[in-house]
C-alpha cells in the first residue's frame, strides 16, 4: 500500500531532475521543488477543533529568454504536469520581451553552496495525542473565572523541504522545522472585553521541554487570564507625551513595520506601490541617512539558529550571510535580493524568498534583529520620569511610505519617577518613523533580549504570506505621543 508519508530527499531531487531534463535546450533556468507538511491543532473553550494536516507539493519553473523571465508553477508533478509547467514558463518568457523591467536570473554561482540541514533531526515532535493533551492542559489552566469567555491554545508544526537547481549546476537542499504556538485568554466585563496572549514562532522541535523553555506553562496560561481580568478594571492609558519602554514582544512589530518594510529594496524601487506600499527611503540614502540614534544597530541575521526565518540560501540560491543594515544609527544597506540589487546597482543580501513554490520569489526581510546594549530593564525604567511600559502588540497601522505609524498593545504599565506603577488598558502610541528611531536613548542588555517572530507577513502580487524572525532587547524612546481607548 502506498503511504501518505512524504518521501523526502531523493524524491524531490528526482522531480527536479525530471524537470531539468525537460529544460534541455534552454540556456538559463531555475527549478524550485517544495514539499511542506503541516499539522495544526487548536483547543478553544475546552473543545479540540478537528486537527488538520496539510501538505504542499509543488514546483516552480523559471525560464529566462533574452533577459525576460517566465514562471510556471504547478501542483501537478506528473510527467505531463511538469511538461506543461515548463512549456508555460517558456511561453511566459517569450511574451513582450521589449516591455520587461530588466534583470534576469542571478549570475551563475561561484561560491560553495551551503546546505541547511535541520539541526533538530534527532528530536521528535509531540505526537497528535501528546499535542492534544498538552493543549488541553494549558487551555484549562486559563479557566480561572467565569468572565474568561474565550480560551485558545494552539500549536502548529511544519516540516518544509526545498530543492533548488539551476543551469549553472547549483543544487541546493534545505530542510526546516517550523513551530508556532499561542495562548489567548479573553475576559468580558460590563464595559467590553480585554485579552492577553502569548505566542512564539521559532525553528525547532515541538517538544514539551522546548515549549516550556519559551514559557508555555500552566503558570503562564493562568497569568494570562489574571492579566486579562485585571485589564477590565484598569484605567485607560493616559493621553499625552511620555517616554516609552517597549518590551521585545512589541519591539518585534516596531522593527517589522518601521525598519524591515521600509528597507525592502523592491518597495524602494516601487514594485509594491499598488499593494503593500512604497518606502520613504531612497536608493541614495544608503551610506548617508542617519536612520536613528547612535544606539540603533540593526542586523540582517539569517544565521541565527532557532529564529523563524533562518536559512543557508535564499530561494534564488544566494548564500545567506549576517550583515549590518543600520550601524550606529547610519543606514548602510537595503534588504534587496540579487534581482532587485542588480536593478538598483547595490550589493545584494540573500533575502529573496517565495512563500511556496506556487509564487515567484520576492524581497523579504527574513530575520531582522536589534543588537543588545548595556542597560538592564531596571536601569531603563529608572531613567523615566513619566512614561509607559508596553508589551504584546494588538493593533498596527502605518502609511504606505512607512512614515506615520500608530500601534496599540494589549497592556501597559505606567512609570512615574523611575518606578513601575499600575496597569493601564488600551494603550496606543503614534509617531513618525525617523523621529521615533532618533528618540531611542536606551537599549536593553542581553538579559532583556528575546528571539521572536511573526508567521504572517503579507506582501506581493499575487499575494504571499511568509514567516519572519525578529529579535530585540527592551528599548526606551523619549517623548512619544501615547493615548488610550474610548470613542
Amino acid at each position, binding site marked *: 500500500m502506498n503511504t*501518505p508519508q512524504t518521501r523526502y530527499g531523493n524524491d524531490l531531487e528526482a522531480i527536479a531532475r525530471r524537470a531539468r531534463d525537460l529544460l534541455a535546450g534552454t540556456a538559463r533556468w531555475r527549478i524550485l521543488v517544495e514539499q511542506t507538511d503541516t499539522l495544526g491543532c487548536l483547543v478553544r473553550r475546552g*473543545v*479540540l*477543533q*478537528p*486537527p*488538520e*494536516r496539510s501538505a*504542499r507539493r509543488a514546483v516552480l519553473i523559471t525560464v529566462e529568454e533574452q533577459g525576460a*523571465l517566465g514562471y510556471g*508553477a*504547478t*501542483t*501537478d508533478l*506528473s510527467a505531463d*504536469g511538469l511538461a*506543461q*509547467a515548463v512549456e508555460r514558463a517558456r511561453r511566459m*518568457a517569450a*511574451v*513582450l520581451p521589449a516591455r*520587461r*523591467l530588466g534583470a534576469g536570473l542571478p549570475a551563475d554561482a561561484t561560491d560553495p553552496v551551503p546546505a541547511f540541514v535541520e539541526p533538530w533531526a534527532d528530536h521528535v515532535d509531540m505526537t*497528535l495525542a501528546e499535542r*492534544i493533551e498538552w493543549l488541553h492542559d494549558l487551555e484549562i489552566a486559563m479557566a480561572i473565572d467565569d468572565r474568561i*469567555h*474565550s480560551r485558545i491554545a494552539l500549536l502548529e508544526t511544519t516540516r518544509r523541504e526545498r530543492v533548488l537547481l539551476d543551469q549553472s549546476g547549483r543544487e541546493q537542499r534545505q530542510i526546516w522545522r517550523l513551530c508556532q504556538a499561542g495562548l489567548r485568554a*479573553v475576559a*468580558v466585563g460590563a464595559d*467590553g*472585553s480585554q*485579552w492577553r496572549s502569548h505566542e512564539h514562532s521559532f525553528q525547532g522541535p515541538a517538544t514539551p521541554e522546548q515549549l516550556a523553555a519559551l514559557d508555555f506553562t500552566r503558570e503562564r496560561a493562568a497569568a494570562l487570564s489574571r492579566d486579562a481580568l485585571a485589564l477590565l478594571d484598569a484605567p485607560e492609558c493616559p493621553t499625552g507625551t511620555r517616554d516609552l519602554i517597549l518590551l521585545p514582544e512589541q519591539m518585534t512589530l516596531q522593527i517589522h513595520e518601521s525598519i524591515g518594510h521600509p528597507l525592502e529594496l523592491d518597495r524602494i*524601487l*516601487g514594485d509594491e*506601490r*499598488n*499593494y503593500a506600499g512604497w518606502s520613504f527611503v531612497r536608493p541614495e540614502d544608503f551610506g548617508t541617512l542617519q536612520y536613528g540614534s547612535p544606539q540603533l544597530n540593526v542586523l540582517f541575521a539569517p544565521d541565527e539558529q532557532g529564529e523563524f526565518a533562518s536559512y543557508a540560501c535564499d530561494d534564488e540560491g544566494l548564500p545567506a550571510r549576517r550583515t549590518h543594515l543600520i550601524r550606529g544609527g547610519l543606514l548602510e544597506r537595503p534588504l534587496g535580493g540579487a534581482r532587485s540589487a542588480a536593478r538598483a546597482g547595490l550589493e545584494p543580501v540573500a533575502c529573496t524568498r517565495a512563500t511556496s513554490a*506556487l509564487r*515567484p520569489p520576492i524581497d523579504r526581510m527574513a530575520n531582522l534583529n536589534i543588537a543588545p546594549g548595556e542597560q538592564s530593564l531596571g536601569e531603563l525604567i529608572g531613567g523615566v520620569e513619566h512614561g509607559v511600559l508596553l508589551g504584546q502588540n494588538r*493593533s*498596527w*497601522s*502605518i*502609511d*504606505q*511610505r512607512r*512614515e*506615520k505609524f*500608530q500601534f496599540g498593545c494589549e497592556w501597559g504599565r505606567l512609570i512615574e519617577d523611575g518606578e513601575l506603577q499600575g496597569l493601564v488598558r*488600551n494603550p*496606543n502610541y*503614534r509617531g513618525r518613523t525617523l523621529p521615533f528611531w532618533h528618540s531611542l536613548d536606551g537599549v536593553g542588555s542581553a538579559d532583556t533580549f528575546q528571539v521572536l517572530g511573526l508567521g504572517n507577513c*503579507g506582501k506581493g502580487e*499575487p*499575494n*504571499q*504570506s511568509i514567516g519572519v524572525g525578529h529579535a530585540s532587547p527592551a528599548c526606551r524612546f523619549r517623548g512619544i505621543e501615547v493615548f*488610550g481607548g*474610548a*470613542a
Partner: protein
Amino acid sequence: MNDLQPLIHALAERLPALASDGETLFAYVYGEQTDFARLSRSRINQLGHIHQRRLTLTLSDGRAAVKDTWDIDAGALDTLAPRIERLRGDLAATPDDPYLSLDASPRTAHSGQLSAARDLEPWLEALLANAADDDLVGIALSGPQGFGLASSLGHALSHRSGGLSLDASLFTPTHQAVKIEWSAPADGPADPAAALAQARERLALLGGEPYAPAPGRYRAYLAPEALTELLGVTVWQGFSRQAVESGNSPLDRLFRGTAGFAPNVRLRELREDSNAPPFGAAGHALPGAVDLVIDGRAGDTLVSPRAALEYGGTINSDSGMPIALTLDGGDLAEADALAALGTGLYLGRLWYANLSDPTHCRVTAMTRYDCFWVEDGRIRAPLAPMRIDASLYSLLGPDLIALSRERHRLEDTSSYERRASGHQLLPGALCAALPVTL
C-alpha cells in the same frame, strides 16, 4: 480545470466505498489556472502561470472529525486510501467534539459561471502599449477557478468562477496615485485604453502641492472604496456569532444593544449576488441573504456550523465572516457629493485600517489614493498622507449626514494561497466630523 464536475462525481462514487461503517467522508476541492502579470513602471516585472488543485478530506466517525489537505493531480483518487488510513489513526487520538457539524442533506448541484474566455497576453499588450508614458504598477490575473464538494453521503456540488481582473495604480512623480480596478465579468468588456484615459483624468486632479490639515475634526466624504477599508477590519469578526459570544467582536456593543448606527444604516450579507459557492466546506447550504443591521440596530449574527451548535441559531455562514457585505444606499447623488461636503476632506481610498479600540469600534487608517482637500464644494489640493482614528458608531451614527444613492461593487482582489471570492457593495458616506490625528 475550469470544470471540477467530473472529479466531484468520481469522488462521490468512490467515497462511500472508502468509508467504513459509521464513518463519513467529505472531500472539498479547489482548483485554479491563473496567468499573472505583475507590472511596475508600465513594464512587466513578473509573468507566469499557476496551476493548483487541492483537496481537503474530512473523516468523521460521528463523534469527532479530522482533516487532511493536499495537492492533487490526475491520480487524485489513488491517493485517497492511504490518506484515509492515516486519518483513522488521527481520529482514534481525537476526543469527542460536541460542535461537530457535517451536513446530512446530500444533493447534487452545479452553479456559477466563468466569464467569457479571455487571453491575458493580447489584453496585456494593449494595456502596456497604452500605458507606455504612464507610471503604472499592479497585477493582472486571468483564468478559471473551480470549487467542489463530494461526500460519502452523496453530496456532489460544484461551482465555477473566475475571469480576468486588473488591480493597478497610476502614479504621479510626487507620490500621488489613483487606483484602477477592473474585473470580468462584473464590469463588462475590458478596454484598457478607456480605463487608462479615465484614470489619467483623475490623476490630473492630484497635481499641485499637497495640503496637510492640522489634527482636528473635519467634515468628510468617504467614497465607497474608503468605507470598505474601515468596514473590512470591523466585519472580519464583527458579525461572527462565535466572536460576539466570546468577547472578540468589535461590534459587541451593537449586539448588546448599548450602541448602534444611524436609522438609515442597513447592512446585509447577500451571498446570492456573489461569485462564491452557495455551499460551505462542510456541505451546508447557505442562504442568499442575511440581515445584519436593520434601521441601525443589530440584526442577525453570522452563524457558522460549529457556532450553531455551540451557541444556538441557524447556520447562515461558512466562517462567520461576510463575503458579500451590502450597505443600502441613501439619497445623496454622487455627482452632488462635493457640493454637499462644502469644505472638508474627500477621501477616495484609505489603507491599513486596524482597530485602535475594539470596545468602541474605533478604527485607525491612513489616506491613500484620490484624497483631496475641498473648499466650498471644489477640489483645492490633494491631501498629504494623513491618519484618521474614528469610531464607526460615530461615523455611521450621529455624525452620518447622508449615504450616496449610487453604490460601488468592490471585488475582493486578494490572492493569498488562492484567488479570493466575494465583494462588498457600498455607497459613499458624508460625515459631519472625522478625527484626523497625525
